[in-house]
């Protein structure tokens, strides 16, 4: 949590509030795909986020996501059986680098994030760790201050023993921009 707060303070410290170029809020949803994990299957996810852009090239985002994994299957002794894939809640912050303003038009950016990850699953101990993600995004903002966004994230959650859990996420979302303008 301290790391997440620090990221926000650093970003807002880069510029005064008067220089804010965009504030937006949005919802998104999409696919949650485990990477090299035989004990889970792909699921879906939903999220909420708020974005603050102190300059047209950098922004800070706070987000909350609720996701689930699909139930893995196994056949043994001729019996087909499944296991609970579990649910994930994550919240955190990310820095966007690229075209992060709120003007109409396409905006391409990269996101670097840090988040708290909690995976609750029947029969397993909860996994609660800090994770990291990186990925590109593209938002098309129309004159009505609405943005349609598609983005990908590759996330890694380090686990005990030097291993990690990895997931790829693909989201589509809609954002409302509060009309501050700016951007490239």
């Amino acid at each position, binding site marked *: 949590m301290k790391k997440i707060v620090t990221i926000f303070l650093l970003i807002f410290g880069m510029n005064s509030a008067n220089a804010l170029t965009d504030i937006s809020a949005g919802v998104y949803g999409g696919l949650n795909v485990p*990477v*090299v*994990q*035989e*004990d*889970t299957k792909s699921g879906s996810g939903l999220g909420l986020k708020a974005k603050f852009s102190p300059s047209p090239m950098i922004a800070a985002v706070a987000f909350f996501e609720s996701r689930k994994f699909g139930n*893995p299957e*196994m056949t*043994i*002794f001729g*019996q087909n*059986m*499944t*296991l*609970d894939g579990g649910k994930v809640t994550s919240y955190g912050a990310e820095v966007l*680098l*690229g*075209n992060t303003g709120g003007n109409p038009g396409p905006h*391409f950016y*990269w996101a*670097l994030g840090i988040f708290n990850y909690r995976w609750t699953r*029947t*029969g*397993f101990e909860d996994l609660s760790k800090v994770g990291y993600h*990186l*990925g*590109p995004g593209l938002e098309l903002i129309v004159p009505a201050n609405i943005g349609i966004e598609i983005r990908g994230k*590759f996330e*890694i959650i380090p*686990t*005990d*023993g*030097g*291993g*990690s*859990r*990895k997931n790829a996420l693909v989201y589509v979302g809609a954002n409302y921009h509060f009309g501050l303008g700016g951007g490239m």
Partner: protein
Amino acid sequence: MKKHINMILAVLLSLLIVGCIGTGTITIKHELAEFVSSNSGMEIVEVDLTTNNDYNDHKDKIKSIDQVTVIGWLVNELPAANQAQIWIADVGTYSTPDLVRENATRVFVSPVISGNDSLFVNWADGLDLIENLPTLKKAAENGHFWIYGIAEDTPFRIRFHVTLIITLTAGL
């Protein structure tokens, strides 16, 4: 400037993906030969995971054992209801149920099985029936241990046909 940022971050993402795919979470099935254990003829089963090709492929690169469970058939061959139990130890020298209870670690207790009846324990149920998971994980990481099949009540005669399911994170 933007081109440089994009290039640097694309390279960083590629390195992150390639580097992180260096580990993965794998599910290994290790079927035990069917055995019958009774209070007068207790069966002791040596588990050598190095005979399992999937385990062998990863044993030197294990980062963590994430879960171990037992699934399969349990048959109560006596008329009285009973609960099957699996105990483990790092030696195979305990020759009676009492010695097992004194020296080994109980890792699995089945629901009550009616007399002369059978029970199938599936993947999800098996997770709920495991006890002393840290000891079981450590045994799985070592790759070599002994299983003792006994029961809650005496006399007992239980047929075990089970598979160990081991979920581990390892270098690929």
